[in-house]
């Protein structure tokens, strides 16, 4: 490579525009970093493996462990299996306004889980466990749709999520869970 005989030439107008461009990029990056670090606005993450072929024989995803469970400290967890063609169990009830942690695994192929217009969204990759924590402000009936191509039944892969008010939730679950 021959040596250069002049430095980079930038027109003054270009310099102005570059400042605008940098400022725009800095704004976007700043918002992402701030909301990520201080408000915990993140996509799901964290490498956790599991044998998708043997989900039903595992501890966490055994068929009788699926669905909604409430820990002694009140933390709500929903355990789901994505399998052609539904999210199992196919009908779940959770309370509004409380943080809910979803733990999802695939028993076969790639799936995507999304409750439209909420941030409950994740890929479900066979071999890996997906974890998403969110809260639903408003009670109502929400469809849980699969949004990744998983075969000829993909159009039909969906389940029902019912978000009930705090009062209805308290009425549902016995107050005492101790043996």
């Amino acid at each position, binding site marked *: 490579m021959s040596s250069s005989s002049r430095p980079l030439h930038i027109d003054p107008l270009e310099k102005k525009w570059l400042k605008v461009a940098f400022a725009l990029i800095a704004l976007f990056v700043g918002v992402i970093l701030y909301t990520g670090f201080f408000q915990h606005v993140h996509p799901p993450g964290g490498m956790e493996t599991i*044998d998708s*072929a*043997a989900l*039903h*024989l595992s501890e966490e995803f*055994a*068929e*009788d462990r*699926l*669905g*909604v*469970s*409430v820990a002694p400290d009140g933390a709500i967890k929903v355990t789901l*299996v994505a*399998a*052609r*063609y*539904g999210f*199992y*169990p*196919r*009908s*779940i*009830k959770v309370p509004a306004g409380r943080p809910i942690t979803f733990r999802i695994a695939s*028993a076969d192929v790639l799936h995507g889980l999304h409750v439209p217009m909420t941030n409950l969204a994740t890929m479900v990759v066979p071999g890996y466990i997906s974890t998403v924590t969110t809260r639903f402000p408003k009670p109502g009936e929400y469809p849980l749709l699969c949004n990744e191509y998983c*075969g*000829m*039944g993909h159009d*039909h*892969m*969906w*389940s*029902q999520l019912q978000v009930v008010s705090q009062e209805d939730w308290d009425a*549902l*679950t*016995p107050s005492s*869970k*101790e*043996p």
Partner: protein
Amino acid sequence: MNRFLNISAIIMAFLTEGVWAEPSSKVAFTPEVLKTLSAGQTKKGEEIAQSCVGCHVLGGAAPLLDGQIGAYLFKQLKDYQDGSRMNELMTGLVRGLSDQDLADIAAYFSQLKAPSSTKSKVTEMAEVLVHSGDPRRILPPCVACHERDGRGQKIDVPAIRGQSAAYLHQTLKDYKSGQRHNDLLGRMRAISQELNEKEIKALAEYYGQ
């Protein structure tokens, strides 16, 4: 501890549909099992299957096995062995067979020519369920899993075309009542529970002979 589990089960019964205490099947298609399956030998399978072909013919109570999906056959045989699927006759017959024997049987039957479904009875009720399902009951179409013509799909969705109609009828009824419960995640049970008698009959006649 037991009482805690019982109460949790009651709670979960309110919050979810369907509760199972044990896995529906103990068969998992792990790499080891897949290796066993692919090592299945047709010739050996034919020898062992000599005692099967007597019952597994058209017109008998036992289902036709020719051209069935190999991994599905393997799973059913193993489920008979450990009680996940109940049939006194079958349980007795498969006792003592090794995994490799079962893989050989599966390999043998899966490479036979599958039955055709020339005697199937096509009704509109069946056509709709087979090709479109029913969104109101969250029923996917049968073809979504069982493929067009009901030929089955890897790895373990069974072929149902040309099967004995009586057997298909009984199977759907058994899934509906929960008598048969070795389907992973209760998927066939959930589907069958949504179907009424007429629909079950129509589907059995659509696919079967």
